[in-house]
């Protein structure tokens, strides 16, 4: 369980000669670890994920995946190691859920190949595990927010990566679905996937019980745990509001709660 999946050293990124979006990012991710990245809007969380997915290239620093330089890894090879759920989906065409999930098999197919029966079998298995079979023929443009997020995660699962990255996976979901997706992520980490997600809610980081990364408005990144990072002072600078971390007896867990308005 202790295997190192990802190692980011002194990474920074800027568009051309503009101010850096983020700088001096150091982080590691082990098997079964959940890293929740918190930070205000526009801090550069999404750009960081985009760099780790290989879509953007960091301006400085080294990214290693499975010990190899991430940017020297062949795209297909990289796609077999990192699955990415971006924040916004382009939903132009009405692909069925099954067709959409099958696209996750792309890194295992040659240039002119389409998914085989075996690939679709794997798609069906994953859909069964996640109770998505009733949606199989539904158009993915017509899914609810929670269903859509599950379908995206299913697509990433048939990709069979070691790392799953999700950009604000519970944003825009109703409260019940937020918890449902977080529980799913927790279960996936128990299956030894390394998980990186971004979130606006410090409480989500506590619920997921993993490592925490904070990216501030200037794009500086700090890695730590709930104990070291989620204290009142830090939360005040991060969100400009008074928020406390406290043990809630009834729920038997620590929670981040704002003070009365």
């Amino acid at each position: 369980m202790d295997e190192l999946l990802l190692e980011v050293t002194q990474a920074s990124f800027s568009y051309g000669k503009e101010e850096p979006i983020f700088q001096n990012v150091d982080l590691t991710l082990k098997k079964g670890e959940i890293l929740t990245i918190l930070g205000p809007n526009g801090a550069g969380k999404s750009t960081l994920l985009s760099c780790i997915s290989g879509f953007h290239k960091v301006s400085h620093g080294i990214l290693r995946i499975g010990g190899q330089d991430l940017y020297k890894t062949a795209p297909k090879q990289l796609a077999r190691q990192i699955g990415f759920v971006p924040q916004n989906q382009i939903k132009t065409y009405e692909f069925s859920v099954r067709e959409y999930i099958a696209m996750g098999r792309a890194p295992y197919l040659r240039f002119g190949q389409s998914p085989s029966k075996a690939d679709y079998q794997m798609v069906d298995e994953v859909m069964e595990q996640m109770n998505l079979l009733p949606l199989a023929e539904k158009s993915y443009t017509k899914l609810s927010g929670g269903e859509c997020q599950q379908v995206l995660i299913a697509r990433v699962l048939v990709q069979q990566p070691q790392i799953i990255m999700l950009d604000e996976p519970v944003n825009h979901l109703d409260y019940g679905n937020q918890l449902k997706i977080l529980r799913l992520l927790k279960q996936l980490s128990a299956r030894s996937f390394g998980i990186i997600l971004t979130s606006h809610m410090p409480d989500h980081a506590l619920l997921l019980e993993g490592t925490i990364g904070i990216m501030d408005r200037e794009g500086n990144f700090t890695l730590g745990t709930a104990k070291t990072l989620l204290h009142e002072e830090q939360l005040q600078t991060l969100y400009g509001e008074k928020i406390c971390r406290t043990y809630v007896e009834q729920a038997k867990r620590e929670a981040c709660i704002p003070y009365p308005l």
Partner: protein
Amino acid sequence: MQKKKGVLGVLILLCLILFCAGMCCGRFQITFGELAAVLASRFIDIPVTWSQNVDNVVWAVRLPRLGGAFFVGASLALSGTVYQGIFQNPLVSPDLLGVSAGACVGASLAILNGWPGTVIQILALAGGLVAVALTNVIPHLFRNKSNLMLVLAGIIVSGFFTSAQGLLKYLADPDTQLALITFWTMGSLAKVSASDVLMIMPGMLVCMGILICLRWRINLLAIGEVEAHSLGVNITALRGICIVCATVLTASSICIAGSVGWIGLVIPHLGRLLVGSDNKRLVPVSIFLGASFLMLIDTFARNLSGTEVPLSILTGFIGAPAFLGLLLRQKREI
């Protein structure tokens, strides 16, 4: 979304029926029996019971013409499907992206100079590629890749090339070349010969083959760049190959039939209505749907009145209302 099986089979059958109907109909009526016999006579020994005229009409006139209609219809529909997929935009087509106008300018230039067929083909292809490249670049300038921006870019590029086309018409000799170019920009298969069809067929078949092989991958481009990249897709290479193949198909069609509008826009939408958005099923369906449509239109074009009706007039009269109907049916938010 229901899976409708057997759609492709029905369309192939429809293609065959329309082919036979097109071969039989015309000012010179031929019965189906005669047609079968004339076609078979080149391969097996059967006693000749028909006049030489029938043989001529079948082999030298109608077969090249229907062959041309088949390939042009299939190519335009296929390239429209591919463009719509890779640009993630169901509102584009060879016409709207400026490819048709660009190819027309290239081809007209060659016609005006009296250059041979291969040069017409090469210039049409070059014109088409320049146009699609320009259309592709404009949204990048604005860092805005919305559907609307791409359509606007297409309008700008189309507008420019249409003016260039106008200039070429203005310079053309009104007695000989002008009528030829004008008639040709409205689309016609009237002057298609067997050698024309044979000239464009290899390129078309190769490009169709490539696109058929890549049809599932077009889905990956259709769900967006970030996602395609995260799935290990070499976006630049895949999109490049698709654009070149689709442009070769459009330009080759324009070389023999002039510019025939609407097919590349309407047929992919109709196909999606029949089999859904998965390009794995949509691509073959579009090919046969486009081929059937143009064979039907061309048969009308030469039978409706004493003279030939240009194809674009008919495809526009049918395509525009059909497109409106499809949009209403899909209730797309645009």
